[in-house]
């Protein structure tokens, strides 16, 4: 009697509809919460004025809770040795790349999340973004209050890479990834900037105004962003595109082969 066994999938199967719904909802709530500087003034109104200085810590708490929730949910049923080993090795690459090649906002570590998310799927992409950022924070000695925030942001970059269309040809896949690399380069910067922005409450045209409408705050923030990190983030966006175009195909091919060698059934991811 012959038994045909499919090797376990990468991570825990994310197939059930309820689970996917829960994950998407959690992410949406998280995203909404991150955007509190725009929405909350309209909701809380004048009461916010008294606590405007305390607002930002709400963000850290939220980021921390969100990261924890998502990690718990993704890890339900156990990640398994294959996922943990891949997270370890690819996380090590992120740690190793954190420091060198650091030009303005560009960090070579993003290419790892981009290709790994694209090759192994959004769940793995998110996990790698979170774990790798945490590990490189530990390594570089950069454990700060922004860390949960940064973990989730890099996690989102990885997850997004996993949701891109693959297409039948390499060119399609790479162009999507390059475009996403540019977009995520800017978005990541915009999100990361958001953590320190609400500290700036001096009434200037790029400061946060707890009494203003969402639209006003948004335009203020765009001014703030333009003044502070636009160039920084452009370096990151350009760097991402360059690396995707040069390294995308060989790295993705290597990861696809690794999946086969590990006997992973990626259809289940």
């Amino acid at each position, binding site marked *: 009697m012959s038994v045909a066994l499919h090797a376990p999938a990468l991570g825990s199967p994310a197939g059930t509809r309820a689970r996917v719904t829960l994950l998407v909802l959690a992410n949406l709530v998280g995203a909404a919460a991150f955007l509190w500087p725009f929405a909350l003034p309209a909701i809380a109104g004048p009461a916010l004025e008294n606590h405007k200085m305390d607002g930002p810590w709400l963000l850290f708490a939220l980021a921390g809770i969100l990261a924890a929730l998502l990690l718990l949910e993704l890890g339900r049923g156990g990640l398994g040795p294959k996922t943990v080993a891949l997270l370890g090795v690819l996380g090590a690459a992120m740690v190793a790349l954190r420091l060198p090649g650091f030009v303005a906002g560009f960090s070579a570590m993003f290419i790892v999340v981009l290709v790994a998310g694209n090759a192994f799927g959004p769940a793995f992409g998110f996990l790698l973004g979170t774990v790798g950022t945490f*590990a490189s924070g530990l390594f570089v000695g950069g454990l*700060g*209050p922004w860390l949960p925030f940064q973990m989730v942001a890099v996690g989102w970059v990885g997850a997004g890479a996993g949701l891109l269309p693959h297409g039948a040809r390499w060119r399609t896949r790479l162009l999507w990834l390059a475009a996403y690399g540019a977009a995520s380069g800017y978005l990541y910067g915009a999100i990361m900037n958001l953590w320190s922005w609400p500290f700036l409450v001096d009434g200037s045209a790029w400061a946060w105004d707890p009494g203003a409408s969402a639209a006003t705050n948004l335009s203020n923030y765009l001014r703030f962003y333009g003044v502070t990190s636009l160039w920084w983030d452009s370096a990151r966006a350009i760097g991402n595109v360059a690396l995707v175009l040069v390294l995308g195909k060989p790295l993705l091919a290597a990861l696809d082969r690794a999946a086969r060698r590990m006997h992973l059934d990626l259809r289940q991811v």
Partner: protein
Amino acid sequence: MRTGLHPGAWIAWASGAGMVAFVTTDPVYLLLLWALAWFVYATHRVPGPEARSFRLFLLAALITLGLRTGLVLLGTVNPSNVAFAFLEGLRLATILVVFGTFNAVTDPFGVVRLAPRRFHEPALAAALALSIAPRTVASVANVREAQRLRGIHVSPLRSLPALAVPVLEAGMEQAVTLAESMDARGHGRGRRSRYRAQSWSRPAAAIAASALTAAVVFLSASFGGWAVLHPPTSPLAWPETEPILLGAIALLALPGFVRGGQG
């Protein structure tokens, strides 16, 4: 590293001090925190690369302070505005300095080991990333040299694959061996136990308690409004200081008087 203070004590200290810095822009309190952070760093720093991070954080703090204050110059400049921006920057900078101390005195593996059971696998992945990273860095150097010895220079962007692919492939082979080994050694089998888990010593507990107290005092002042935490800047006036709050901050100096057994 198990002979040092329980990492949880350090996390409590950094969180408490960070919380205090969060809720105030009073330069007296903030600068006092700077002094304490430096004091604790000096007495507890772990020799090695981690100690360097304090200087990095200090640098980042000063840069942040400079940038925040400099932003004002783009708008209307008057003593009020400058003072306001400076104090905002000082608050952020203080948080950075506190975490600089935290990074310089803790062992990364110790922090990872603390992860609660439910987070065991992500924490393990983070620990793995930390221990494999030096090998990855060495791999990059080796591959670069090996390619040079066959006539391929990896500097121009075009030849990056010659550097990146072998490094990644080596990593992938390692991942297979690692996964097999972990599977064969019972990963994911059931309830785990902890080998020689670090226990809370009295000094560690005292540090955690004092940090918590300091944070609570300041939070109560912030929500209860019984002290001025944000000195007025228009008009510009000298900050008042509340003795109770000064005492609360002084509690955060406790680690400096405790022997951790490290360094």
